[in-house]
């Protein structure tokens, strides 16, 4: 690299208005994207706070009932919070997917999923309230201007604008031979010039990533920040290598810009679009009839079972129940069996949801197998995984939801089959048990 050429490029850069302003616009856009997604994150956090407040209020209401010796709401006399069944029922739990520290750097697939869910005993991971937050669908298809979009899709375009006429402007104006006469190694001259833009771009985006990362997560997430930096730098560097050969080989700037835009189009639009189309042909949108069957038809069939069958089913699924108190008292046993149906349905839901996960995973396998020739999707998914906004981040969120439903049902089984009486102390204990981190 020739340091003089590198330094002089600054003059080339700011004298060329199209390049200079494109860079400035890009930087403004980056700031806009960061602020935009930061605001989305703040909005999500507000919603999460509202949820926690509501949860707290509902729990306080129940604690008040205990303290005032009330058994439940005034207009529902059948509710008795001294019965663990009702105590657990009146103990609301929400499973939240909090936005990660790096969320402002990549919104990923988060707009396709919900990030909070109230888990009840009948809930499942594919309930309709797991749908995405309210958004305009037409806006969703266009996507948001987020930082990862800017880096993965727009930065190569900025790089094209900055470099397409390096070594080709000279050819357009017929003084490329003069460059060769002046400069012993044209490749060195070209690399020095290109390196200026690469450095400019990398320094700019790395500073943004570091600033945002450290502001929202501090040094604790330095590892994640470095991963993002490494990924974005390798990505842009790969494009710059392809573009370097275009710069060398092209006969004029129109030809180089055409080739560069075509490369961008092929990697960012055509290949991902084709893989998407093929994946959907191979695995069309799932209407989830198996899950619907479990959720509805099979559930209703379970309801139709008599107590003996239900009892057998419960013992099969939860063998330890046989030793618990309520099995000795036939009257209580009938009620407990009916109250335990949700635990049976939960097991069925787990099975049905796993089937969906398997089907989705098959589609994911196909997508992953395309990474070798579809690097942009790979980079985007890796980026999304770093910002915890990819399919798998939401899959693990679904597992959290499922865990919460299961914990609730199992707690209920444990308590109602042990014929326990609940009071304020046990209610507080339930709160702790239903918390997932315990």
């Amino acid at each position, binding site marked *: 690299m*020739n340091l*003089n*050429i590198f330094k*002089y490029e600054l*003059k*080339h850069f700011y*004298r*060329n208005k199209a390049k200079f302003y494109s860079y400035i616009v890009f930087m403004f856009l980056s700031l806009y994207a960061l602020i935009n997604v930061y605001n989305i994150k703040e909005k999500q956090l507000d919603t999460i706070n509202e949820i926690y407040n509501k949860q707290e209020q509902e729990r306080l209401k129940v604690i008040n009932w205990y303290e005032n010796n009330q058994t439940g709401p005034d207009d529902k006399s059948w509710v008795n919070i001294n019965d663990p069944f009702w105590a657990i029922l009146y103990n609301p739990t929400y499973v939240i997917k909090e936005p990660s520290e790096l969320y402002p750097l990549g919104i990923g697939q988060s707009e396709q999923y919900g990030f909070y869910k109230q888990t009840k005993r009948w809930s499942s991971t594919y309930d309709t309230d797991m749908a995405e937050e309210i958004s305009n669908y037409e806006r969703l298809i266009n996507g948001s201007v987020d930082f990862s979009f800017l880096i993965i899709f727009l930065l190569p375009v900025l790089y094209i604008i900055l470099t397409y006429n390096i070594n080709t*402007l000279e050819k357009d*104006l*017929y*003084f490329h*031979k*003069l*460059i*060769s*006469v*002046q*400069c*012993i190694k044209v490749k060195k*001259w070209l690399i020095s010039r290109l390196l200026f833009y690469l450095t400019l771009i990398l320094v700019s985006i790395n500073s943004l990533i570091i600033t945002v990362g450290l502001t929202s997560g501090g040094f604790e997430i330095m590892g994640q920040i470095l991963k993002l930096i490494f990924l974005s730098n390798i990505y842009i560097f790969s494009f710059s290598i392809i573009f370097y050969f275009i710069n060398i080989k092209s006969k004029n700037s129109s030809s180089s810009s055409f080739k560069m835009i075509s490369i961008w189009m092929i990697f960012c639009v055509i290949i991902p679009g084709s893989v998407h189309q093929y994946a959907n042909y191979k695995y069309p949108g799932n209407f989830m009839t198996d899950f619907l069957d479990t959720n509805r038809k099979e559930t209703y069939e379970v309801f139709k079972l008599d107590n003996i069958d239900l009892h057998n089913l419960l013992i099969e699924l939860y063998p330890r129940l046989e030793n618990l108190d309520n099995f000795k008292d036939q009257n209580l046993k009938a009620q407990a069996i009916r109250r335990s149906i949700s635990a049976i349905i939960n097991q069925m839901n787990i099975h049905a949801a796993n089937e969906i996960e398997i089907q989705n995973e098959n589609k994911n396998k196909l997508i992953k197998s395309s990474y070798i020739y579809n690097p942009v999707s790979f980079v985007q998914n890796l980026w999304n995984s770093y910002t915890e906004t990819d399919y798998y981040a939401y899959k693990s969120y679904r597992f959290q939801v499922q865990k919460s439903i299961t914990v609730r049902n199992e707690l209920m089984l444990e308590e109602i089959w042990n014929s326990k009486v609940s009071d304020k102390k046990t209610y507080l204990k339930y709160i702790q048990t239903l918390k997932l981190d315990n």
Partner: protein
Amino acid sequence: MHLITIFVNKKLVIQLKNIQKKFKNKIALKNLNLEIKSGEIYGLLGANGAGKSTTINLLLGFIKADNGSICMKDPINNLKIKRDKLGYIPENVNLYPYLSGIENLDYFSKIANLHFNKSQLEEILISCGLQEDSIHKLISGYSKGMRQKVGIAIAYAKKAKIYLLDEPASGLDPYSSNELSILLKKLKNQGSTILMASHDIFRVRETCDKIGILKGGELVKEMYSKDVTSKQLEELYLDFMKN
């Protein structure tokens, strides 16, 4: 300086021996033999496709000869002249339009690893005939003649031993063309060797010490300009073209 010029005057600086060059099926140069001595301005006349630009490109090292040898030697130390000591002025000196004359010179010097301060750069440009008030203006506002002066300044700044000019007078008005002649003679007097390819019989006769006529890739005639008048040169040239 003058003594050195006299001392090295007889030494060969450019020597092309039996050069052959083919492009696909077309012969561009056929046994070209050309010798240019130190401090000489050599004018290469010829029609379009005669091989003038091919000769210059060969000397610049942009193309390789199929046969024959090329030798460019420094008359003082007898060492080979490499590309870093060659000055090249194309037909159209289109430099970076968004840089000024002085910035272009600075840039092209820097890429040749030469460093000048501002006053040195100004001096070079002025000595190459550029008006002082134009030096800091953007090249996009320059006339062709002014751009050519910057082109020559670029070669001059790197103390080129040999100047290779491809159709330098084409498109220039008579005044600018005359200024170019004066500038080239000044360079010659400082010891530079100049090869100039052109169609312009009158300008070649006025500027050059020696003239060669190229036809079909062969040097068909060589003469000293002091031996012919412009009129005679024109007749001679037309005769060769007809036959």
